[in-house]
């Protein structure tokens, strides 16, 4: 048994975590409130697909190994089906390989993905793409990465759009504090956050939407230059709100 002092210490620790999220004004112009219908569904195990990103820049993306060590085993979400052996790059979108006849056809190229992303972000944010991988390289869909700027804040991002199987559900990357819900249109939405304990002010959000038609859209956005590994903190807060990120991945324009 313990006593109330331990409870007080727990409250104090939780309070200190509040400071990890930079203060921002509320989004008074809110996104579609329909996406706030929340529920939690049992995560259907999905085989993780290693997404190999060919870096245009000299430095290749690396698996963020410290994240798997977070909490010495706790703080992990079991990526059922196993993460397998992730290659040296990457971002796992937690979707299976596309079926032989995909229900959804992702953008055909990095250029097409970039153009579509910019269209959806018009008036909200701008992106500067420094890395990309074509569908033939990822075996799923195109992926891009670089810097996203909104409201005067610039942070690292990566975006993957792929075709998911009919039984696939959204889930978060390992090590992320995560919620998953199903929207009224059948889209499953995973929203997660990761606080880098080694870098003050470093936080990454992940939002993954698996639409009913099989479109899987995953966005990582960080206060760091690189959302996948320890790097320079470039923003005092995540450039987009969770609502804005959610609106982006659930957009019917994908």
């Amino acid at each position, binding site marked *: *048994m*313990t*006593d*109330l*002092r*331990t*409870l*007080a*210490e*727990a*409250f104090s*620790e*939780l*309070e200190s*975590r*509040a*400071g*990890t*999220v930079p*203060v*921002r*004004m*509320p*989004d*008074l112009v*809110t996104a579609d409130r329909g996406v*706030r*219908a*929340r*529920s*939690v*569904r*049992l*995560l259907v195990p999905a085989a993780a697909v290693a997404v190999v990103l060919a870096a245009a820049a000299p430095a290749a993306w690396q698996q963020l190994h410290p994240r798997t060590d*977070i*909490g*010495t085993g*706790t*703080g*992990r*979400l079991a990526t059922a089906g196993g993460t397998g052996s992730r290659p040296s790059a990457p971002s796992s979108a937690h979707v299976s390989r596309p079926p032989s006849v995909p229900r959804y056809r992702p953008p055909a190229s990095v250029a097409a993905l970039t153009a579509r992303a910019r269209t959806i972000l018009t008036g909200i944010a701008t992106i500067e793409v420094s890395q990309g991988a074509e569908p033939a390289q990822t075996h799923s869909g195109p992926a891009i990465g670089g810097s996203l700027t909104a409201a005067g804040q610039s942070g690292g991002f990566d975006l993957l759009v792929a075709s998911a199987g009919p039984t696939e559900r959204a889930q978060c990357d390992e090590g992320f*504090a*995560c*919620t*998953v*819900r*199903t929207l009224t249109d059948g889209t499953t939405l995973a929203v997660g*956050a990761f*606080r880098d*304990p080694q870098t003050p002010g470093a*936080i990454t*959000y992940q939002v993954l939407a698996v639409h009913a038609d099989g479109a899987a859209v995953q966005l990582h956005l960080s206060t760091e230059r690189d959302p996948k590994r320890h790097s320079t903190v470039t923003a005092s807060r995540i450039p987009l*709100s*969770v*609502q804005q990120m959610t609106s982006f991945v659930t957009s019917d324009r994908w």
Partner: protein
Amino acid sequence: MEFSDYVRTQRPALMRFATVLTGHAWLADELVSDVLGKAFERWDRITAMERPHAYVRRMIVNEHLSWHRRMARRRSTVDLAEMSIPIPDGTASHAERDAMIGRLSQLPPRQRAAVVLRYYLGLTDGEIAAQLGCRQSTVRSQIARALNSLRIDITETAGRQAVDTLESR
């Protein structure tokens, strides 16, 4: 008080409260932002109240509990509390504290809210009952059950306080 001034001065306190209530800073951020958005729409009425900050805090609790009720209606087979995993700092000396955070995350939302309102905000049974829309007897039973789940012995606390008092003389 202007809404922008209220947000600037009180948002940090709301964030701390919401983080203690939900267990996750990023979830608290979303919760507080949602609630402040709603508060903005009725700010004239709120600012005229005797205790506007207490009212906004109550909105946060209600929004959080409402969210859990919506999840329950969808017959979720996974409770968010089961998915709420604390992020320990890896220090052995904080193992007890981190274990407590883990047990807090496992509490049903109303029990957790009752514990937070009592031991974090220091509200009375009557104030908690008004906040949660239940009887004071229900508040007491919720807290008793929560303390049992948290493995907290109130008498142990009282004993230690008595010893501390004696030693300080």
